[in-house]
């Protein structure tokens, strides 16, 4: 079943990452690290989330983010 938040995140992550991979297989369990989002590009990712979802995530919320699903859960909690 398609998840609109995950779908949107997938697009953002594709833009933030330099990885050449099968992006359709990215789901909630995919780790951010495995997508080539290194420590520097985590800030780019947060900027894009802010712009595309209109939600500014708090520093505390994102420090321990591990998977795409965890970001989606945070966004849902914040009203996405």
């Amino acid at each position, binding site marked *: 079943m398609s998840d609109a938040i995950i779908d949107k995140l997938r697009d953002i992550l594709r833009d933030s990452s330099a990885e050449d991979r099968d992006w359709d297989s990215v789901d909630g369990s995919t780790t951010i690290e495995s997508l080539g989002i290194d*420590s*520097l590009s985590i*800030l*780019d990712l*947060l900027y894009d989330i*802010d712009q595309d979802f209109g939600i500014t995530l*708090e*520093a505390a919320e994102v*420090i321990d983010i591990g998977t795409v699903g965890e970001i989606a859960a945070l966004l849902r909690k914040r009203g996405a």
Partner: protein
Amino acid sequence: MARENILRGGIETDPGRASALSRRSAEHFGMLVIESLKSAEMLEDDRWREHVKLEIAPDVMAVLEDPEQALIMASGHFGNWEIAAQLLSRYKPVAGITRTMNNPRVEELIQRRKPRYRFHPIPKYAADPRRFLAVLQDREILALLTDQHAHTGGVPIEFFGHPAATYTTAAMLHLVTRAPLCFAACRRLGPMRFELTSSPLIEHRPSGDKKADVRAILIALNGHLEDAIRQAPDQYIWGHRRWRD
């Protein structure tokens, strides 16, 4: 290298004067190390007031005095950034990236000195945006020296008229966390006497054009650094290979 940088930056146009300035810059670095070793005593209790004149912008001071707010404080290798960090840690803890000194004897002296009040060093190898986010989450001051050549992920920003690869971290942290951001510099006025100044807060909200946002912030920061250097060019570490084109 220092002399070439001074000439290239247009600080001096005469090679002889540029050489003299590069020597004074080297002497300044020696002074900086000695001052830093003495800093714990100098800044103890209220004695710091005899040594440091504070010229902090009111909006920055309001952030420093508010325990609920973090602050991103950008600076460069100008004046005595160690004194600045230690003094500011009287307001709230300061975290800053540190690296091992090239000279092992100097490094040994640095390591042997007294602990630096509420300054928390982040070793260069462990400098990571997630660590910086944690500092901001703890409502501390994140001190970043933004004038090193950016090996990866940097953007070219004019520095004394020439593009220099510049780290984007300070700008991106401000954009994504909205944490207040300012530039600060600690200029030596005389033996063991300094003036710690800050810019007003640099406020920039994300516009959707990430590159333009980052660029605008970094141009502002470089502008403040250039202004500080022009006031006392001999207090800048000119030996770093800032321009690599």
